[in-house]
């Protein structure tokens, strides 16, 4: 099978664009894991909620998807804080099996709750600009994917400044580095946990809102993205938020480029295969400082 240079460039560009969405979901996951040592299996489903909020705001109130991003972030942020209060907080010091099953139960409730309440249908967001395709010579990609890429960079930059320049952000990182020392210095760790969980799922919801402009929306859409996000977090190093951004793009490119060479159904196996290889040769991830074993 011969692959032309143009196909390859197109695949790389599309990989970067979809990878930036993967990254948003993975960064939320890495943030929650880094601060709280909890793996949120329901991450992909909070993303799905974000996509649905965007859809309903457009369908019911005619709010443009780009304007609904902050709304969907806020709603899911509040949901995240409530989740932290009523579920996660209770299992923080519980045995491992409870930690795993708690967020897994959350996954089932959100995903299948959406299925029951919204119906098992596939929906699409369409506005005036969702059909536009940008072309430059033989290179082309949908406008909405370009918007999503730019937005993901903005969100990541904002997160970077929040975590490095503001007092609360620095406190959050302090908790992630050493919870007891942070507590001794007067940081309210419980509040930081609320913030981390809310922020973590909120960022995923932004990813979901952006995704909804070029991807079908259905209640089980979170399943695939959640797994990809986990792979990215392992790949980028456990708990490393910006490692997650870079490795998200790497995984996106690897997927799109490999789809040129192998049957499309096996495209996702590449990501899972990379994950297994990564676990075998470098369990701490590409950018990992925190030992994940």
């Amino acid at each position, binding site marked *: 099978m011969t692959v032309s240079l143009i196909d390859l460039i197109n695949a790389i560009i599309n990989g970067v664009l979809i990878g930036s969405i993967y990254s948003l979901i993975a960064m939320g996951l890495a943030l929650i894991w880094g601060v709280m040592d909890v*793996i949120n299996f329901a991450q992909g489903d909070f993303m799905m909620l974000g996509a649905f909020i965007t859809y309903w705001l457009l369908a019911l109130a005619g709010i443009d998807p780009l304007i609904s991003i902050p709304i969907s972030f806020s709603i899911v942020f509040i949901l995240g804080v409530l989740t932290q209060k009523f*579920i996660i907080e*209770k*299992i923080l010091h*519980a*045995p*491992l*099996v*409870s*930690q*795993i*099953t*708690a967020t*897994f*139960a*959350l*996954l*089932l*409730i959100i*995903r*299948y*709750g959406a*299925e*029951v309440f919204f*119906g*098992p249908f596939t929906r699409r967001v369409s506005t005036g600009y969702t059909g536009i395709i940008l072309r430059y010579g033989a290179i082309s990609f949908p406008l909405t994917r370009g918007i999503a890429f730019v937005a993901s960079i903005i969100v990541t930059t904002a997160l970077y400044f929040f975590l490095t320049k503001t007092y609360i952000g620095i406190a959050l990182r302090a908790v992630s580095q050493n919870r007891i020392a942070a507590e001794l210095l007067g940081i309210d760790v419980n509040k930081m946990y609320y913030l981390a969980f809310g922020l973590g799922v909120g960022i995923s919801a932004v990813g979901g809102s952006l995704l909804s402009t070029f991807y079908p929306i259905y*209640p089980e859409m979170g*399943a695939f993205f959640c*797994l990809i996000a*986990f*792979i990215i977090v*392992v790949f980028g190093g*456990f708990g490393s938020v910006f490692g997650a951004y870079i490795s998200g793009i790497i995984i996106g490119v690897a997927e799109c480029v490999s789809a040129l060479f192998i*049957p499309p*159904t*096996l495209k*996702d*196996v590449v990501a*899972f*295969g990379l*994950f*297994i290889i990564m*676990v*075998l040769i470098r*369990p701490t991830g590409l950018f990992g400082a925190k030992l*994940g*074993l």
Partner: protein
Amino acid sequence: MSLKISEIIDLIRRQLYGTRGIIISLISLTLLILPIIFWRLDLPFPANTLLLCLLYSILAMAWNILAGYTGQISFGHAIFFGVGAYTTMILMLYYGVTPWIGMFIGGIIAALTGLALGFPLFRLRSHWFTLATIAASEIFKLVFISWKWVGGAAGLQPPIVPSELALYYLQYAGPYIYIYIALGILGIEIIALYLIINSKTGFYLQAIREDEYAAMSMGINPFKYKMIAMLVSAFFTGIGGGLYTVRYRFIDPFAVFDLITISVYIAVAGILGGIYTFIGPIVGAFIFMPITEYVRAQIVVRFPRYYGLHVFVLGIILAIITLSMPEGVVGWLEKKGLIKRELTLFNPSKLKEDEII
């Protein structure tokens, strides 16, 4: 294992004395008579549910030796289930091997798959192990979907055989015959797991669960014993897959490698019953399967609009159990003193000096 045949018989006989013996005999008798009652009264729904309870008991018991006793929470047991199911089906369909042997070979292939997966997976601990098992089961599903020889996404289906070959190909109408096969498998499994749990190996597994580093410092090789647990667990899960194949006579990757209806159902049955107890998974399966089957068959099948309701109910059950009764039903009854905690029959103090490691 240092147990002799006479000791094994003695061990089992000791379990059958007294009140416990009466209860076990009564339950066994009920389970043996129930299918006949369902058959005579023509009640397919309770019979199907009973079969599912038994199937998930087999699976959850197998899962529990890895999850409950060794502390490695797997959400990827659909891999072994699917491998067992596909092996049985392919042997029957392409090579004419009877499922009586095919199920057993399916178990062996599943156990070998478990060994092969153990090498990468056991490098990870805690959550990350769970996560990697999910990723591995997704890989299996995707590979089987694109693998033409095993039927790809369309799945495999054996032809209907004439009734004189029914015994060879295990094709019977309704669930009634299969209930007895499931009971047989479950009986063998209970005895096998009971012997393992009450041997030195079972003791080591629990030591690894409690504190892996402490176990290592006592000279236990965690990797080796995790592999043993994986082997046993995958073997019985594979046999469960074979049972699924002969009962439903149709398999496709979406059904047998499913994360929710296989891997998570197994785990929920185990957790609901109590993963730190021996009979917990069976109790869990017998509580959980009737509920979810009832919701699925009575509501979801009638009103397809509410697809997913049975899994939603499952999620709520799992959340309640996790938050308010993490030790499971049997564990809770033991804590309240309503059931006597099963004493381990393995007594370390009886070991000779050179036998300890």
